[in-house]
């Protein structure tokens, strides 16, 4: 009797909703999925939960990844926004027209009139840049589900890999768990963190319950639970104990560092040439703790300590409004702390390269990725010492309590000293072991 070859099923729900820019979890799914698909030893199929029919359906994972690869891979020569390509030509043309005007006409044009025309031009290009970005995203959107989806059938001996936000889709997870009582497939559920259970105050109403139920089912149904840090593994084991589960099989697989080496650098308009600045990367949300940065920068002013501008880049998130409002309206930090949303990768890469150092005050992280990003760029970093942060930064980072503006200010002032910073950068260059996605995948592969 012949047996069917085993299949590795990968949940690609996260990528179905891709809109041209990968979020944190989408990036992880993408990096692992493309390596699994390229693995010659595996028969790989993708699946997702189809809400229309209430079932798990197959997805052409290779086709999906192909459609994404040309856009996700770092662009060697970006075409640039309209302002970059058209503005110099328009300016040259305007100068040429001005030069051809009769002298008496030129004499009647005041400087103020020229400034007005330039301001109108700048506004027009800002609109054009944004429109181009939206158009590009729309082009990138891959075909979602096929019109006639096939049911994803997991059989005994198969492996099912969940890497997405399964807590957002309890029906899908319940279906998988229910099927596991019928077929003995191996379920591998990647755990990023259990932060909503530890710090529910940083999330919207209802997430605590949804997340708790996801953790319960993940603990109950999974054969192995890879965790992205020792900190996450500790938290998961504590939750298992609290819920009276037998200790689950876990393993730590650290994520690969963000790859920005091939990304073209582009100076953002909000930074002047030669301006010294400190950089904070991360969404502007309560848990990321920009409030502490705001307090530390105010504390410095109170103590007469001159700090360079703090540039915070990240998309707006849950409970970030208060600090945004304070930063925008508090005259004492105006121009000394600025928040920027929708900053393209090329500009973030430039900011990383040109900042004095980075700061990351997050209260809790499954994996403090901005620390790895900073160290991979050879930049010193001051970070909170909570959760996974010390695992990421080792002894290369200046740590502080996420609840102490005083400690944060001390860490920042220490790194402002050029000798200290240089010494730290030399140590980073010498000691920091970059984490590659290949290494990370090889750990995951061993569990599949």
């Amino acid at each position, binding site marked *: 009797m012949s047996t069917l070859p085993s299949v590795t099923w990968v949940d690609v729900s996260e990528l179905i909703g891709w809109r041209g820019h990968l979020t944190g979890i989408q990036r992880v799914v993408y990096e692992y999925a493309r390596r699994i698909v390229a693995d010659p030893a595996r028969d790989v199929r993708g699946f997702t939960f189809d809400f229309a029919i209430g079932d798990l359906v197959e997805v052409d994972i290779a086709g999906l990844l192909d459609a994404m690869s040309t856009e996700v891979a770092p662009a060697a020569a970006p075409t640039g926004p309209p302002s970059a390509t058209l503005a110099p030509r328009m300016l040259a043309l305007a100068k040429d027209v001005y030069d051809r005007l009769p002298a008496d006409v030129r004499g009647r044009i005041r400087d103020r009139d020229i400034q007005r025309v330039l301001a109108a031009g700048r506004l027009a290009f800002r609109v054009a840049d944004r429109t181009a970005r939206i158009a590009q995203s729309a082009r990138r959107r891959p075909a979602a589900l096929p019109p006639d989806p096939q049911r994803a059938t997991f059989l005994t001996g198969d492996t099912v890999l969940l890497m997405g936000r399964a807590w957002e889709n309890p029906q899908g997870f319940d279906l998988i*768990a*229910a099927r*596991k*009582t019928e077929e003995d497939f191996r379920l591998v559920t990647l755990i990023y963190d259990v932060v909503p*259970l530890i710090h*529910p105050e940083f999330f919207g109403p209802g997430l*605590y*319950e949804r997340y*708790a*139920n996801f*953790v*319960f*089912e993940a*603990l*109950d*149904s999974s054969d192995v639970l890879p965790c992205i840090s020792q900190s996450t593994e500790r938290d998961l084991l504590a*939750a*298992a104990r*609290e*819920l*009276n*589960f*037998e200790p689950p099989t876990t393993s730590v697989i650290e994520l690969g560092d963000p790859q920005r080496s091939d990304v073209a650098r582009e100076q953002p308009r909000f930074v002047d040439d030669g301006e010294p600045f400190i950089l904070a990367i991360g969404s502007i949300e309560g848990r990321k703790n920009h409030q502490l940065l705001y307090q530390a920068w105010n504390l410095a002013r109170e103590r007469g300590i001159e700090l360079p501008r703090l540039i915070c880049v990240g998309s707006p998130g849950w409970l970030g409004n208060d600090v945004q409002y304070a930063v925008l309206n508090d005259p004492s930090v105006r121009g000394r702390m600025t928040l920027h949303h929708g900053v393209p990768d090329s500009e973030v890469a430039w900011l990383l390269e040109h900042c004095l150092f980075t700061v990351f005050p997050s209260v809790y992280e499954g994996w403090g990725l901005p620390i790895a990003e900073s160290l991979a760029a050879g930049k010193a970093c001051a970070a909170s010492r909570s959760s996974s942060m010390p695992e990421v930064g080792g002894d290369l980072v200046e740590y502080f309590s996420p609840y102490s503006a005083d400690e944060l200010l001390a860490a920042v002032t220490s790194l402002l000293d050029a000798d200290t910073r240089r010494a730290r950068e030399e140590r980073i260059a010498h000691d920091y072991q970059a984490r590659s996605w290949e290494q990370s995948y090889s750990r995951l592969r061993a569990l599949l």
Partner: protein
Amino acid sequence: MKTAKRILVLSTYPIAGANSGGQLRVKAIVDAYREAFTEVKHVGIYARDNYPYHFAADDIRIGGELGAKILADGMMADVRVPEAIVADADLRAQVRELLVSFRPDVVAFEQPYLYLGLHGLLNELPVRPQIVHSSQNVEHLLKPEIMRGLGYSEPIVEAMAGLVREVETELCATAAVTAVVGPADAAVLAELGASRVVLAPNGVSRKETDREDVLAWEHELRTRGISSYALFVGSAHPPNLSGFRTMVTTALGYVPRGSAIVVAGGVGDMLQRSLRGDSLADVTAHRRLVVAGRVSDARLQSMLARAAAVLLPITEGGGSNLKTAKAVISGRPIVGTSIAFRAFEELMSLPGVTIADDPAAFRAAVARALVAPSLGLERPAVAESVLWENCLSDLVEAVRAL
């Protein structure tokens, strides 16, 4: 042949629509007396709105302001009713009329509380009836325990404990017969002065399952994807909830997929209300928990008939438990504490009975029972001892001898 005696049984609750353990016990005692004696009357004296739906014509239901005041006193109602009998002229007249018109040979107090209100009236009667003290628990020990659990302040708890001890002691000294549910209670009440102590443990009636209802219950289980479950049945009595939370818990990671803990009876509603939205265990409990709440007798029999195990997570309280008797007579496997088997000690070694007093061991036993083949167990004849007629025979004979 019935013995010619007029027996008056008094309690602080009705027995019409008997549902809680206490009500079922009094009803069984009244039924047993009616089998044995010529005239038996039960009268419940209680705040009307405490039992608005089920009552008998003979009951003395206290309404109006007085009833509302008693009701508002919560756990103190048991002593507020007898205090009202002493203080309220109308109520006192009503109770006196009952005693005068019925002319009981025996007044049987179910629990000691009403004696506090009646002993004066009894002394005024031309003929003094014999007194029977039917105890369910050692009240002066249990009551403070429950009140502390409900958050009453210590001075109130202490005052209540003192009062209850006083009346319990007086009744023990006065009663011609004191019935207890177990040997442990017998020892305590004997120390308080009880002279003729008889054992009358709680029991059950033998009940048949309703085939149609079993099929309906099985259908419900299939709909919920449950192939095996452990059943806990209890009334809305605070120790039932605390026992469940200590031994079974709402952290149900140890319950395998496709299995569940089913909680029936008033304790289910109590459990549901107690679930906290900020507790990891509580918010995930319904992954493996079915709160059936109050169910019909037929459904309870169906639930018992299909249970992989019946749970007796009793950690406090005196007396014996009806739920223990029900579990034993059901013939299903049992996981229980040794406290649950107080007064049924000889049944602890029956086949299919697992005793676990350590919470972790209790849960491990539940997990084993859920995955074990669900076979009915043949209980030996000793299990018949839990039927009411056997449990109450000594009490009936002691009263007959008065």
